[in-house]
């Protein structure tokens, strides 16, 4: 048996402060490996010991990934590095996406006593954010607020846009930001030398590097003031004199509306006129006016605002004519050429993916005939056989364009169609429900207006939206006499927007039935 000698307490080795611990949080495919290689090359070229690790494998297939690097000055004798970051023990965290910055904070890789956080503010949406029928996007603001508390030094900028703008990728701008942050004891030239040593796409990488460096040093330039305010002024339509006069009189009516709702009403009016014509625009203002008349200035014209928005959306339903019209506009061609970066020496082939069903065709028929067909299964079957199939239309070809052009020109015909009648009936019923709650149940009226948001999409999706709308309205009737009725309607609507199948909505409806049924 040996002696049980008590060992002396040993103070923390001051040399340990010389280890720099750096974590890179990225999404698979973002080039985290390239960035790691550059950092390693840089550290070694500056005479540092350096060790890097990563977890490769399936995690790289668009999943969240971590790379980890440690380095220490060359005069230290064989330092022992860790292979994984520890919570509360990371000096520099680079996050290649905003939610990955959030993940780094959650995992403790950003702490106020030591961490420089360099994060790109751009978003790569996770699947769970995208599949929500409504708006499921996570809040970058919350992550930003947390980052401000968690980081000792914080560099936040859109590193992705900065890199793409100069023809490179985010790994280069992040490397630039790392240089610009001053968190590593190396000169800018040494960083650039590491990029050159990599040998691939050196020039674009160096441009993105410079952009990232500037962002780290000077921050993002303040954004240009919101163009929205200016935009309402610019939209003065061009067109025949007769229509111009009609438009001017509509605009004059807008001027007569309460100031709070003018902007929304003008946006709505523009959409409606663009969909059909000035007469239709006048109908829109008539409908709106009815609700404005009974609105309450004390409530900030909430009712009128919602009405201006949702009546416009309801009146500009998505029929074949509208889709064909939008698809053949010159502005669309210009936008696509722009987005696809078509240069003058290139050509653009444009194929639209359309799939009309019998319902769409019948909707185009005059009301009476359409109804007859709609109620005759044999005819519906026949029409389905004739028309129901996927169609690839080459909209840049004469034939394809002409077909859509003719359809898009049927606006005069539209008012006679079955679809128009159905939309009008639905609109009227909805607005009657709204009016029924006025003036006593103001909040209910507002919520019922907002429920229009549930109706969207085409074919099955549209049908599902309609059924959700109906369900929410039937739920509304159950709670219409309760003080918190409006709150319940809002809850039902939010539940309906959460998942496709409407499970959340059905659950909420059950709850309502349990106390109101």
């Amino acid at each position: 048996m040996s002696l049980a000698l008590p060992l002396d307490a040993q103070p923390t080795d001051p040399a340990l402060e010389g280890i720099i611990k750096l974590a890179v949080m990225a999404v698979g495919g973002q080039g985290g490996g390239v960035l790691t290689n550059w950092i390693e090359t840089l550290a070694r070229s500056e005479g540092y010991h350096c060790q890097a690790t990563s977890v490769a494998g399936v995690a790289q297939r668009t999943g969240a990934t971590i790379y980890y690097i440690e380095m220490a000055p060359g005069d230290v004798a064989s330092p022992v590095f860790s292979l994984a970051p520890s919570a509360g023990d990371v000096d520099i965290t680079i996050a290649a996406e905003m939610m990955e910055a959030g993940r780094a904070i959650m995992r403790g890789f950003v702490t106020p006593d030591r961490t420089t956080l360099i994060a790109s503010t751009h978003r790569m949406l996770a699947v769970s954010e995208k599949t929500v029928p409504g708006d499921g996007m996570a809040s970058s603001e919350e992550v930003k607020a947390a980052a401000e508390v968690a980081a000792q030094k914080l560099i936040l900028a859109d590193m992705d846009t900065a890199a793409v703008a100069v023809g490179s990728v985010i790994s280069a701008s992040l490397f630039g930001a790392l240089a610009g942050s001053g968190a590593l004891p190396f000169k800018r030239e040494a960083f650039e030398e590491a990029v050159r040593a990599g040998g691939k796409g050196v020039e674009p990488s160096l441009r993105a590097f410079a952009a990232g460096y500037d962002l780290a040093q000077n921050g993002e330039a303040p954004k240009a003031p919101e163009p929205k305010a200016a935009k309402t002024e610019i939209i003065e339509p061009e067109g025949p004199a007769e229509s111009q006069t009609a438009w001017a009189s509509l605009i004059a009516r807008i001027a007569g509306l309460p100031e709070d709702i003018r902007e929304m009403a003008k946006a709505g009016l523009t959409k409606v006129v663009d969909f059909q014509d000035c007469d239709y625009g006048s109908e829109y203002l008539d409908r709106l006016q009815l609700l404005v008349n009974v609105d309450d200035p004390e409530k900030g014209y909430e009712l009128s605002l919602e009405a201006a928005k949702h009546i416009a959306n309801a009146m500009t339903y998505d029929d074949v004519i509208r889709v064909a019209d939008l698809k053949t506009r010159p502005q669309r061609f210009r936008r696509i050429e722009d987005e696809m970066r078509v240069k003058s020496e290139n050509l653009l082939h444009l194929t639209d993916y359309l799939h009309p069903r019998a319902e769409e065709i019948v909707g185009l028929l005059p009301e009476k005939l359409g109804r007859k067909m709609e109620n005759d299964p044999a005819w519906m079957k026949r029409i389905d056989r004739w028309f129901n199939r996927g169609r690839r239309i080459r909209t840049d070809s004469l034939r394809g364009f002409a077909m859509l052009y003719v359809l898009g020109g049927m606006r005069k015909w539209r008012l006679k169609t079955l679809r128009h009648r159905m939309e009008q009936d639905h609109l009227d019923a909805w607005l009657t429900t709204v009016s029924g709650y006025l003036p006593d149940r103001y909040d209910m009226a507002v919520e019922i207006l907002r429920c229009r948001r549930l109706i969207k999409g085409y074919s099955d999706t549209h049908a599902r939206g309609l059924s959700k709308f109906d369900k929410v309205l039937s739920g509304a009737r159950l709670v219409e006499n309760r003080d918190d009725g409006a709150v319940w309607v809002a809850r039902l609507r939010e539940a309906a927007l959460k998942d496709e199948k409407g499970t959340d909505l059905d659950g909420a409806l059950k709850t309502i039935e349990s106390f109101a049924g």
Partner: protein
Amino acid sequence: MAERSFKAEVEHLRKGTGDVFTGEGILAITKALLENGVGYVGGYQGAPISHLMDVLADAEDLMSELGIRFEANASEAAAAAMLAASVHYPIRGAVTFKGSVGVNVASDALANLSSSGVNGGALVIVGEDYGEGSSIMQERSYGFAMKSQFWLLDPRPNLPSIVKAVGDGFALSEASNTPVMLMVRIRSCHVTGSFDTSDNVPPPLSVKAALSNPQRDFKRVVLPPMSYAHEHDKIDNRWPAAEKYILENKLNERFGPEDGKVGIMCLGGMYNSVIRSLQRLGLADISGNTSVPLYVLNVTYPVVKSDVLDFCLGKDAVLLVEEGQPEFIEQQLGAMLYKEGATTKLEGKGIFPKAGEYTGQIMFDGLEAFVRQYAPELLPGKVLAPNTPKTELPDLSKTVPIRPPGFCTGCPERPIFASLKLAEQELGSRQITGDIGCHLFACLPPFEIGGSTMGYGLGPASNAAFDGGGEKRAISILGDGGFWHNGLSSSIGNMVFNKSDSVAIIVDNYYSAATGGQDVLSSRAENDTKSTNNPISKALAGVGVEWIRQIDRTYDVTKMRDTIREALTTDYKGPKVIVASSECMLNRQRREKPQRNKAIADGKRVELPRFGVDQDVCTGDHACIRLSGCPSLSLKKLDDPLRDDPVAHIDQSCVGCGNCGEVADAAILCPSFYEAKVVHNPSGFETWYAGIRRRIISWLQGRRAGKRLAFSGENA
């Protein structure tokens, strides 16, 4: 061709004595094999040693110069079986695969190999896929070492230690006539560093030369009565020989002071993590000089009793740092101490959590708790009584979405599962089993298809209970990798023999894609050293499948869905197999992009497709995304006060696979999608004709604009 090329790095494998190698762990392992006179190598890809297979494949030229045979084995079982060459011949062999699943597959061969014992050094390099970032279940390979009694090395995770372990492994194997498994964890496979190289050594006896002079040692045949003798040989001869070699060559290491009232024992692979925590506790300096005695098990099996008892006896307490469960070593150590009548307190599980990886924080907390309990006087004041309270950080757990891996942009498997989801919407939900491979991502949102995965190539086999059929036929998924690994016999053969009335969908993406794009038998690429272009459908017909549907473009969602519908509703009672073939987009882009760019630069006509969404036609319902999950199909918030919900948007990363448009068509979602094909270097006639079309279209557009109000925005 694999996803990652190591051609440039492989040149460093030629370095000789006096040079320094700097690079990744797996390259260091390869170099060590060459320096140790290995005669043949092989393996099967899988994280984290996929890249080791890629390095070996890229180093094939160098290896043939040295007379080394490289084999890309059909499975881990095949790889382990290859080590049979070292049973009768004095040739060193090494194979690699992932643990623990690869070891599961290989266990039959490993058991036989261990019974026989070896003549030449036999090394299994296993990439232990345990802990955070793992792609498999939570097991450890350790149990296999115990049951078959082969030796397990777990070197400290730095390049010199790993390189040394390769040499030690061969020597230990030969000294004890036992195969040796060298375990490297995920991060040590990819860890970078440097080591001093020595010259490559050609095998003293090459496999080619061995064929000229066949050898056979009757004692090594695994049949009674020899197999009974093998058991005694293991205990009486091989084990003592191994212990002797381990002790004499000091394979296990001790650090820190000779004596102390407490001690820490850790597996080699945990060393750096232990040192980091000791550094943070003020118990070690930057170079790892510790003030607590440390015993590092670079050989984790066998545990050399005399040596560990020597370390433990006389100490008040010893902490064993061993991740995962069961805690194999702790149990052995406990028994040893108890039988010895020792009073040393053994700590391990309890102070450490029984399950899960020892992350930095867990290691720190565990070591702190141990030292605080048994030797608090060692801890510096600031650790004993920290005076800075921790800052409270906002809780982001409800904000930050999870980001599991998924199908890449343009993945040919996406339309298969979109079609399957559409078929289910039409015909009702089905009993579905999955398999191992990228297609397993279909379990996750947005597809949420399939639940059970019983193993590689076992998708259809795991639906065997439902082979008798019923009102709604069952469906199983199998990848091309799994098909050739094991699926042809275990799954398809099983279906044929049992007259299965169910449906199997074989996802054929031309590669073993999930592991990094290695070639398999049915790969379409020409491969100089391997036989490719052996169609799956031919193999199916060969084993007796009669109902086969070959789909050569998975992106045709309508056809794909209709074929699945046919399989689910046909009167045919036997096995129905759909082979859905399209090339892995990641590999395709890697191959085609440089060619395309060159063609454009050379003035050749090239069409570049990409998809787009008309934002005014899109209503923001996101039904398309629920049938896709494509990374390039995302959302965009519009600057329009009338619109509440973000609309679909396709970004620059789109590769024009067409899935979104096809899905919108097949599911009749909406008319928002369009394909924009940019034609580079069009012909003169084409340009002239397009000009004419353009003028007519512009005239028509102008004509309409003159008759209506036109707002400056596309749709105001």
